[in-house]
């Protein structure tokens, strides 16, 4: 069995790319994609550790996350389209109506 550290490193890198994407980008679509990357980074970690320990729970969790991610992407994109139709932009700095 291979050591999980390489996978965990990969997982961390993916997660980090996602975080940077979420925090730094202004395009809501990109942010949504970055979130997906973060989720996948987590998935890698789940599977790696699960397989290292011989426990299927890790894989189960990965599936769970993928399901949720799919749902989230669907709802999120729908919202984005709705917002775009309304505001003709998906730049989050211009979408600050929740501000006080």
């Amino acid at each position, binding site marked *: 069995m291979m050591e999980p550290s390489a996978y965990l490193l990969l997982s961390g890198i993916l997660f980090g790319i996602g975080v940077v994407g979420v*925090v730094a980008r202004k395009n*809501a679509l990109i*942010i949504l994609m970055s979130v997906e990357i973060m989720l996948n980074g987590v998935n890698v970690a789940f599977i790696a550790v699960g397989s290292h320990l011989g426990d299927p729970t890790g894989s189960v969790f990965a599936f769970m996350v993928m399901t949720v991610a799919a749902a989230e992407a669907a709802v999120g994109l729908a919202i984005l389209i709705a917002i775009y139709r309304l505001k003709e932009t998906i730049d*989050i*700095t211009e979408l*600050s*109506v*929740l501000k*006080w």
Partner: protein
Amino acid sequence: MVSGILDFLWLVPALPLLGVILNGAIALFSERPLLLAEAAHGGSHGDAHGGHHAAPAYRKLVAFIGPAVVGAAFVVSLLSVMALAARAPHDRLFVQVLFPWIQAGGFSAPAALQLDPLSSVMILVVTGVGFLIHVYSAGYMSHEKAFARYFVYLNLFTFAMLILVLGSNYLVMFVGWEGVGLCSYLLIGYWYEKKSASDAGKKAFIVNRIGDFGFILGMFLLFWTFGTLDYTQVFAKIPLLSANGILTTEIATAITLLFFIGATGKSAQIPLYVWLPDAMEGPTPVSALIHAATMVTAGVYMVARSNALYLLSPVSMAVVAVVGAATAIFSATIGITQNDIKRVLAYSTVSQLGYMFLACGVGAFTAGIFHLMTHAFFKALLFLGSGSVIHALSGEQDMRKMGSLKKHLPITFTTMFVATLAIAGIPGLSGFFSKDEILWKAFSSGHGHPALWAVGALAAGITAFYMFRLIFMTFFGASRMEPHVEKHVHESPFSMTVPLMLLAVLSVAGGWIGIPEVLGGHNYFEEWLAPVFAHGAAAAHGAAHHPVALEMGLMAGSVAVALCGIGLAYYLYRARTEKPKKIAEAVPGLYDAVYNKYYVDEIYDIFIVRRIVDGSVWLWRAFDAAFIDGIVNGVASLVRGSGDRLRRVQTGVVGNYAFSLLLGAVIIVGYFLAR
């Protein structure tokens, strides 16, 4: 005489109450529409003596009901008193319990009436003099638009006054006590459109309330000491409670002084006398009934009623006597300078009330009540006479604009002159006997002092002086009337002059029931009241061992002082009419001070009234609105302000939220790693 009449004692107050209800209904249903119609027609003239109107039928009814109920009450009173007199002296006490009024825990005060010699005198005076004044009012007030309203108030007053004197415990007395205060307020302010009238009414009520404050506290102390407010029970318990140390002299002094505060309010004594002169804003019959004959004597009645308590405390007795004597001389001096005919009489009333308290203070309760009665006769007569003068002069009250009225108003003049002789203490008239009795007791009684006699005698001289000044200025000399007034001068109608004549008879003969034995008479009055004043008798009869010659000498002395007063008045206001002005100019400071009533009203106003009002404004603006509410609103704005700062965190930019999320995650993970 059927003694069963006593079971109808309740009718005495109930009849005037019936008058209130009937006249009230008439005022509401017959008079109100007329007044409203008139107000709607824009008549802003609604003053004292408006134009003549065709008298609607309801006015005749009111003019009948008002006096009739009081007259009927007088008849019932008379019969009741006769029934009472038929009993043995020690048995002359009749109590009628009407219903339980207030009961709570150990406290109980029934609504009950009590007829005994003292209340007998009082109800006869109240209903008798009251009846005459009601009759007089029907004539005097006949030009008034709110005629029914007047009689509602007047009947209500009679009702309250009867409750005051007939109550069988202090609480019922207090009901009447405040009730007459209310009626006084309503009647002084009868011409409510006049600012001075409504001011005077308010002042009377409030000053009386200050007195009532003392009275009610006295009642509390009395109740928690004796466990009851009932006269008979309280007085019966005195020996027992004194013996076992519950009723100390200090407590007796406290109770009686608190009561006396009430009496100074109601009976216009120093320092609470200030309302009575202003009360002359009311219609003149009201001044006669309330502010001379009956209500203002309530304080004397109360002190006399509580004689057993007062006698426990030498301090209280001394205070009552000194305040009475001081008031007698103080207000008599003010009376000298007043030019308003009613004000002279008002200060005279204050002064005479001082005499009554002087009598009570030296233990001569009988003499005090005797003077109360004779004063009711002659002072009511004087006020009604002055009312007749004012009526004749279309409302003029300034004596400087009168003069020579003797020929125009013969009946008024004669009757008023009789009353003046009585109040001046001319031998043979009622005032002489009662006043002399007081002066003698002030000198001779165990509680008395020669100084009290001297002050009283001096005040008697001043009284004779200012009363004759009034007579000379009003009825003698050259006419100083305004021409248009002089044209309409007329003697008053019979409804007004007949009461005057009856009161004149009483002013003469009223004193004959109490002729002192030194003059060869028999004091029936003292004998009649003896059961009530049994406790005080011993003290007052310290007089017994004084030589007859001394008593006669003092009597002659006081008569001489009175004659001097009369002579001086004749000299200044008949013989040398230019003198008074010169005297006034000679001592301007003194004259102004007396003329302005020693500035007492102003002093009260500046040092008490204004202070309280200004303080209250400060409390409201600075303390309530700025300080307390400032704290309340401060807390609110603190919360609001913090929210205001905190909400800036909500930028609405998703990136910021994501960043703070990340930051939070890093901190938490960092915390667990660092541990």
